């Protein structure tokens, strides 16, 4: 199986073989996924919420790092495509007995896996797996280290398109711990590829990557300035281990300056939507009145995530 060495998710025809990162994907492929997902939303509203596309295929959820929402929505997506789903939480299994990642994957391939959905704390782990699986096996990155979380980025784009229709006139703000966020990276690449003209990142200097402006984004350290007249507010999760670490004085301090409250959200356009990839820290990066408010699309994001993952799996497996 020949895959583009510079971008090993594409085959010789430029079609998607693995989904590893949004970076390097042409706009046509992103639109194809978003369009296909729209059709799957219809499927999930019917009496029988299942289609037969992946009948007889085995999808292995390979989670080397804990996750509830992502793993569950991948599982639901695969089941709605009629695949058999096998969930493996590797940290409590063979890894503790000393087996390497590639040995684990080789053994699961011998169990006739057709697709691996991989979550790993190390950036690049899904690439390593993708390089070593057989030609008929597809790999989906479900989040690797600080690097990428492509299906999250795609479902965010789906949500934005659903509520705002068009990317070409949008002003979007990404708020919080951009430095450690694989979600932020995927969002920035997706928004740029889909033609969003103005992307802002808002956060304290210690939680923004140095030279982040090289990605084509505008940098703000003040919430009210950064949120002024935006159409979309994408909140990021502040990971627990950062709350008391050297990069931040405290969670309370973070909330005071960067927590999304109704008062700060008022700087955005009145019809601005608020996204969050979950799980939320209420009272740290977002106030409950906003999270549960009229502008929040946080729960629809979860539902859209199922359709996006169905779209990705069905595009990959049908080759």
């Amino acid at each position: 199986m020949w895959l583009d060495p510079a971008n090993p998710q594409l085959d010789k025809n430029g079609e998607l073989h693995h989904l590893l990162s949004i970076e390097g994907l042409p706009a046509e492929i992103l639109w194809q996924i978003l369009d296909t997902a729209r059709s799957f939303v219809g499927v999930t509203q019917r009496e029988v919420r299942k289609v037969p596309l992946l009948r007889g295929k085995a999808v292995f959820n390979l989670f080397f790092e804990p996750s509830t929402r992502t793993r569950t929505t991948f599982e639901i997506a695969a089941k709605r495509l009629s695949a058999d789903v096998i969930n493996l939480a590797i940290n409590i299994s063979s890894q503790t007995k000393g087996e390497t990642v590639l040995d684990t994957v080789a053994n699961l391939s011998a169990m006739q896996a057709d697709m691996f959905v991989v979550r790993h704390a190390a950036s690049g782990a899904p690439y390593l797996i993708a390089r070593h699986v057989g030609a008929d096996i597809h790999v989906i990155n479900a989040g690797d280290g600080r690097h990428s979380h492509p299906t999250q980025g795609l479902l965010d784009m789906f949500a934005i398109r659903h509520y705002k229709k068009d990317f070409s006139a949008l002003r979007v703000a990404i708020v919080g711990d951009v430095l450690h966020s694989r979600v932020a990276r995927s969002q920035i690449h997706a928004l740029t590829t889909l033609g969003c003209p103005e992307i802002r990142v808002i956060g304290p200097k210690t939680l923004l990557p140095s030279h982040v402006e090289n990605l084509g984004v505008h940098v703000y350290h003040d919430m009210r300035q950064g949120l002024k007249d935006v159409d979309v507010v994408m909140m990021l999760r502040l990971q627990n281990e950062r709350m008391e670490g050297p990069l931040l004085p405290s969670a309370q301090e973070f909330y005071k300056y960067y927590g999304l409250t109704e008062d700060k959200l008022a700087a955005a356009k009145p019809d601005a939507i608020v996204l969050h990839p979950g799980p939320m820290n209420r009272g740290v990066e977002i106030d409950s009145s906003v999270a549960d408010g009229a502008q929040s699309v946080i729960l629809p994001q979860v539902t859209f995530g199922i359709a996006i993952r169905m779209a990705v799996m069905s595009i990959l497996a049908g080759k």
Partner: protein
Amino acid sequence: MPGKPLPDAEQLLAALTDQMRPTVGPDSGLIGIHTGGVWIAQRLHQALGLKVPCGSLDVSFYRDDYQKIGLHRDVKTSDIPFDVDGRDLILVDDVLYTGRTIRAAMNELFDYGRPASIRLATLVDRGGRELPIAAQFVGAVVDALPGQSIELTRTGEGRLTLVLHEDQP
């Protein structure tokens, strides 16, 4: 791409409407198959004065060649804006050929519920069936060779035309 004209699609549509009028009641559900079938279904729906809104199906998620050629690039959304349970349905397509699209459409319909009946209307029947499927309403029977395809096109003003293509080898 070179193509030669076939029977006039507008005349076939009128003939199809006349065939359907006596037996298609106002509560029948009309469902067009993307893309040409949807155009025809919308026109039939208007001409027959049906009460129930017109539905549309994209059968991409039910095709039997998915394993071979993958998911269709441009999947449209299926939309059945009525309850199919216990209803008489008429599937509408532009060209009936192998019957595989209709098989896929029926499988999809049953995931919406259990219809009382399903009939099939097609503008053109070009023969070449690979499954035991027949249309109850047919605009015209047209001869075409295996290497040819018949396509329905629609102008900006909504006028329908049939075009014959030689498939690329």
